[in-house]
């Protein structure tokens, strides 16, 4: 074998093809969420820290409101645990807008070192994964991972003006208005809580030819299934090793398709699968296939899942967020929708 190849294959902190192992495990120190009014009427309503009653949130435009959510969710997470903003060594995150302006402009207000990320709706998992790399590698001891999305800004960018009449198809999903932030610290830090990140799986971009931008769940399901199967193969684990396998925003149809695709590869998710998009709204809210957007997985993770883990309901959770990497231009030019799913593993430390 080529000697250079051998060197590449021998990365000490990686198992299998795509999975990173954090021997030096980053710990969750704080988290916060902001949610819109409809989200607050949904399944996890009483868990959100801040609920917007007005989707402009006192700003002049929805874009400014979205940026404010990103800024405030970071401040809220730190304030909840009495952490100083000066301790945060890096802010990682993004949103759905062109040139991720919500995150960029919020980073200007926060004045923190900032790495802007775009993974569409997978950005929460992407920022947690990269944040864990920074902390685990000893480069930083405290990072904040945050994302935001806003129904009104997403509608005007990706679809139609708000007051323009439209009829939603049964597969359409609603972009979640909200923001979520997780603060990660080095292991052993006094701020560390009892939840650690043990693994991260970097997803491949998968495209099985779905072109319907109103059916993102079906477009994203293959990427989710691919990352779940890759993670399990890399780590040599089975579904039984996890208490819960969480996907970001596949929605009702996408979640069903992802389970079926996993089954085709011999991975039975059984009753361990929870899709944030499918569960964030109640059926009475009639949101068709469910929620989507960066904030969808972010607020369910930070408001509900991590709290449940802390109290011991779940001990090991595989958290995936899926992103549809399309743009208005690519859709109009008839391209299909490439999608990606990144994953991180949260584990409750027994002590």
């Amino acid at each position, binding site marked *: 074998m080529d000697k250079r190849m051998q060197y590449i294959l021998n990365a000490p902190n990686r198992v299998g093809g795509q999975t990173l192992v954090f021997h030096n495990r980053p710990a969750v120190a704080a988290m916060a969420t902001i949610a819109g009014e409809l989200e607050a009427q949904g399944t996890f309503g009483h868990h959100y820290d801040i609920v917007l009653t007005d989707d402009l949130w006192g700003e*002049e*435009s929805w874009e400014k409101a979205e940026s404010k959510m990103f800024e405030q969710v970071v401040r809220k997470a730190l304030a909840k645990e009495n952490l100083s903003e000066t301790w945060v060594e890096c802010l990682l995150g993004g949103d759905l807008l062109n040139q991720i302006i919500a995150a960029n402009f919020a980073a200007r207000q926060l004045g923190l070192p900032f790495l802007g990320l775009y993974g569409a709706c997978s950005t929460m998992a992407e920022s947690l994964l990269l944040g864990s790399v920074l902390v685990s590698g000893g480069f930083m001891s405290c990072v904040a991972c945050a994302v935001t999305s806003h129904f009104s800004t997403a509608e*005007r960018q990706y679809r*139609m*003006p*708000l*007051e*323009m*009449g*439209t*009829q*939603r*198809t*049964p*597969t359409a999903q609603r972009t979640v208005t909200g923001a979520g932030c997780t603060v990660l610290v080095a292991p052993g830090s006094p701020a560390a809580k009892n939840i650690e990140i043990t693994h991260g799986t970097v997803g491949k971009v998968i495209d*099985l*030819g*779905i072109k319907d931008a109103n*059916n993102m769940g*079906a477009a994203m399901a*293959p990427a989710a299934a691919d990352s779940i199967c890759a993670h399990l193969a890399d780590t040599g684990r089975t579904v039984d090793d996890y208490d819960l396998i969480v996907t970001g925003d596949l929605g009702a*149809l996408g979640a*069903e*398709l992802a389970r*079926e*695709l996993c089954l085709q590869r011999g991975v039975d998710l059984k009753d361990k699968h929870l899709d944030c998009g499918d569960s964030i709204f109640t059926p009475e809210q009639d949101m068709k296939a469910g929620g989507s957007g960066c904030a969808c997985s972010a607020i369910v993770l930070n408001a509900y899942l991590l709290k449940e883990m802390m109290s011991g309901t779940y001990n090991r959770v595989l958290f995936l967020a899926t992103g549809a990497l399309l743009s208005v231009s690519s859709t109009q030019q008839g*391209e299909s929708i490439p999608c990606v799913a990144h994953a991180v593993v949260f584990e409750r430390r027994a002590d």
Partner: protein
Amino acid sequence: MSRNLNRKELEEKEKYNALVQKRMDKSPLFLDCVKAFVTGGIICAVGEGFRKFGFHVLELSQDDNNAFVAIVMVFLGALLTGLGVYDQIYKFGGAGAAVPITGFSNSVVSPAMEFRREGLVMGTAARMFNIAGPVLVYGIGGSVIVGLLWLAFQ
């Protein structure tokens, strides 16, 4: 950006698309048609009411009356869009709310409102025909062709 797909990839895509089509909830076509018929019918009945009003009360000529009804219906469409009601009607009625002239009004007013924040010139004015533009281009273009054909064969 198109890639050369090998046969296996193509087969996988076809298989997946078939699965998606099988699992997908379809729009309830018959129910949607009934709703569209009722909604469109009501809008047209309102228009007809104004036509009768123009004809009998205002005693407008046929041509003036046509313009009168169109102006009133466009105004109502714009007003209901501004009040945030028209998109609710559309959600229920679909094509029944899109096809009458009130739907055209909705498609002009909604981007005009939406892009107000980008300024009156580059926002409202430049984006106003974002959605209605194609209708105008092909509507006017089509009428020119029909006009020329009429001229040639009369």
